């Protein structure tokens, strides 16, 4: 078998047709490259799993230590809380391994459909909210969750992030193959249009600036990795900034958060930030210790969701936070470094998008808690309590884990007669045939 091949499209198939020509639209958005024809599978990057589990377990332990605060000391409820987060983590792990096993062709073929489904699910949520349909859960006029009764809630914005990663990766891979990557008309403008549509649904309709910024980060990272000219990237950032300012003007609560950040905010937002700072500061060098968090007892809003980082700081101290940041740094570096060992543009862009997504969450969350960035209400990946976030982030990481089987990195080892060669042999010869017979024993 050969190496990864990217079958280029016939570039002049529809280029000179009129705007409304259906085949052009097809080419722009829906046409995919041929099968990735993956080969040379090698051992995946298990360190990814170790780092992911480290973060998830730290989150679980700290969450366990503060459950009395969340349930007024009710043991049964505390257990319930733990079981729920444990269940989320289990579902996340299942999603991780399923995603890692799904052939990468699957995502490439169906990425656009996933995106359209995610967009639709996001789009109808606020409309359902306005129509007072009970399926939509709204707080303070922002409808961001589907209420699924006993199962919990579902935040479609997380789904949209995943969909965006898949869609933009596919789109830019096609444009790259067509050598139209830097074409404003055929590449950046359509992409910009779709991004603005997503942003409109998320930022304006759902009033969720944090997710909006994540989407922008995903797309920007993918543009950068795709190799779009820096001039074009700056152009994109400029147009985004204008949109951002407009978004702020539309929703006053966002202005209030910015005002808080500049030290002149309203009481609610000021209070949240002050409490986060007190939680971090009172943690000191070594922290108050597990189960000793006081801020979790109602002082700090969103203690287990968006503010979990401050609770970690109060509980584990500066040293604990440095360790957590180090784990994040290792994980993120490990993810983005895959880009340089992947030949296939599509896979590179998938990894880049997921990297951008995680970075946006980590930076926005820690930045807000340390009063370096405005509060946007965004989770700390893998650590914050919450099912949807856990599910899609684990799923994305599963995709990265799957992709980590195909890096060129190991090819070098193969030539050196390294472990991959033996692992191929092992797979071929080492598989014990008698395992199948064991049933008939």
């Amino acid at each position: 078998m050969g190496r990864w091949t990217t079958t280029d499209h016939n570039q002049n198939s529809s280029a000179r047709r009129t705007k409304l020509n259906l085949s052009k639209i097809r080419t722009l958005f829906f046409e995919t490259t041929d099968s990735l024809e993956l080969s040379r599978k090698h051992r995946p990057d298990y360190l990814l799993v170790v780092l992911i589990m480290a973060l998830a377990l730290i989150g679980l332990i700290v969450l366990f230590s503060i459950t009395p605060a969340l349930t007024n000391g009710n043991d049964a409820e505390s257990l319930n809380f733990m079981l729920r987060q444990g269940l989320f983590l289990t579902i996340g792990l299942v999603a991780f391994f399923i995603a890692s096993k799904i052939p990468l062709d699957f995502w490439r073929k169906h990425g656009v459909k996933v995106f359209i489904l995610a967009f639709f699910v996001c789009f109808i949520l606020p409309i359902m909210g306005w129509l007072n349909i009970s399926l939509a859960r709204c707080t303070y006029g922002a409808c961001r969750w589907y209420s699924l009764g006993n199962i919990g809630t579902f935040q479609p914005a997380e789904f949209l992030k995943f969909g965006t990663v898949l869609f933009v990766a596919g789109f830019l891979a096609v444009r790259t193959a067509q050598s139209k990557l830097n074409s404003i008309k055929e590449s950046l403008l359509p992409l910009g249009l779709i991004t603005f549509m997503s942003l409109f649904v998320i930022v304006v309709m759902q009033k969720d600036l944090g997710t909006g910024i994540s989407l922008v980060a995903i797309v920007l990272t993918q543009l950068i990795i795709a190799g779009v000219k820096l001039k074009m990237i700056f152009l994109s950032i400029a147009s985004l900034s204008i949109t951002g300012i407009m978004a702020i003007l539309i929703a006053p609560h966002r202005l209030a958060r910015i005002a808080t950040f500049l030290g002149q905010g309203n009481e609610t937002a000021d209070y949240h930030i002050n409490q986060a700072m007190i939680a971090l500061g009172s943690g000191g060098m070594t922290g108050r210790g597990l189960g000793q968090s006081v801020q979790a007892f109602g002082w700090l809003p969103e203690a287990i969701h968006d503010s979990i980082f401050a609770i970690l700081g109060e509980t584990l101290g500066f040293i604990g936070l440095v360790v957590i940041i180090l784990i994040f740094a290792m994980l993120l570096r490990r993810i983005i470094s895959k880009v340089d060992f992947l030949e296939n543009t599509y896979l590179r862009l998938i990894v880049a998008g997921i990297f951008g997504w995680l970075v946006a969450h980590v930076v926005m969350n820690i930045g807000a808690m340390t009063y370096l960035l405005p509060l946007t209400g965004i989770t700390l990946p893998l650590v914050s309590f919450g099912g949807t976030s856990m599910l899609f982030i684990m799923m994305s990481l599963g995709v990265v884990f799957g992709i980590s089987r195909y890096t060129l990195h190991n090819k070098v080892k193969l030539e050196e007669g390294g472990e991959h060669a033996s692992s191929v042999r092992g797979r071929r010869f080492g598989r014990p045939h008698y395992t199948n017979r064991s049933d008939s024993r």
Partner: protein
Amino acid sequence: MEEKSTKSRAQWLTIGLFLVLIIFVVRLFYIQVIEYDKYAAQADQMQISKRTINPTRGEFFVLDKDGILSPLVLNQTVYTVFADPTQIGDGNIEKIRNLIQDVAGGQAITSNFEKLNDTAMQYVVLARQVTHTQAEKIRDANLKGVGLQATSRRVYPEGSLAAQVLGFVNVDGEGQYGLEQFLNKELAGEPGVLQSVTDVRHIPLTIGVHDVSIPAKNGTNYVLSIDRAVQAHVEHSLADGLKRVSATKGSIVIMEVDTGRVIAMANLPSYDPANYNKVDDSAVFQNTITMWPYEPGSVIKPFTIGAAMDTGSIGRYSTFHNTGCVMVADAKICNLYRQVDGETIDVANILRYSLNTGAIWALEQMGGGDINLIARQRLYNYFADNYRFTEKTNIESTGEAVGLMMKPDNPNGARVTYSNMTFGQGMNVTMIQVVAAFAATINGGTYYQPTLILGTINKNGKLVEQKPKVIANGVLKTETSKNLKEMLRAIRAGSVSMSQIDRGYYVGGKSGTAETIDPATGKYGGPTIGSYLGFVGDETGNPKYAIMVRVDDGHVAAGSTTGSAAAQPIFDAISRFIIEYEGVTK
């Protein structure tokens, strides 16, 4: 070339990310390590709540004859009704007004109602001292922005009984006057402290190292030596007696001679301690018996005679020639009763006719026939050291005063002053000083600490009696004491009407009428103060109670003295009551 550039882009992103993360770490170091003290202090200030647990103020009881403790002063929880105009909401003001007016009635502070519209305010008091029942009604109405605040107030089941003895508690919870002020520390108790880390609703948590829990120490509950029945009768008799002679002021104190316990202590005019704030003249708060020294007049003569007999200067049957008036230095001192001028008088009759010349004669005898320094020193020693007229009695009453007495070696008219002192002029004493000393002169010579406290109530609700405290023995020799009380009894027994009143019980006493200095002239000639000092005992010849009555500015018929005509009838009424009261129960 292109491949290289994309690779470096990924690396650039990594570098950019790491720079941001390094900024976070530096920032966290600043917040968590450098500014730790600041945030730790903020956390403590916010998270640790320190609550003061108010102790219950001690209450006052009296022991009834049947051994049951009856309350004199109790605590009651009352409520202040307040509103927060910012929380009320527009349509509700009228509703609130009506409800408070209906439920609280007279306790409603209607003048504050218009402030309900003022949303600049957050605390408007709508009614004070609302009872529990009223508070329940207001609570049940569930009006938005209206709250109740529990406070404690003193209630007085016996009304104004013994008002000056008790004192009152002001709005700040501090005892004022009387026992309330004197025992304020013991009554107040000690507040407890509850300090703990709390959640956002200020519910204490079990985590943290700042937890402190000191329970409140409630104030001591006291049982007074006051006898409720006697006190009530005394106040009644005093009011009658004052009315009869149109007097402005009067006081009575009754003390058990063998324990120092005060069983009645009354002053008029009085006040209602529950409504102390409605009093115009704060003088009514004062306990005249302990706070106002005065020249008691002839009730001091038994003390002079006692001193002279005790020193052996005169005997019980010694006599002197009564000239009616004597010259001491340049002062002429006369008797009020002139029907026995020129007669030879024995000691008992000096007391019976209240002869000033006789008292001066007794002083002369103490100096071997002259009012010399020895005589004066001897009288001073008795008055100051034995009778303790120059010292506070330390009875449980705030602001106890102590009288004035000239030193015997004073070069400025000591002879005249000491002559006057023999019959209770030219010196100042309080009634409690006189009664406490009098008890010692008739009980065989033991000076007991006068007290208003019978004991305290322990945790089990049982009375723990306070033992009578002996301050001094040998105030007078036993023999002198016996002679003195017999003479004082003889004065009353000699009169037909008195013997009928006393019905063979052992009752004795001596009246006194003191001249006061007229503020207009600066000389004697102001309104007189009539006093009566006596005792009541049983048939066995043992005085049980020392009683002193004082009437200020009584109006009596010409030729009568306020001592015998204004104060003595009150003593008679009281002694009669006590005889009956004790007689019935004995």
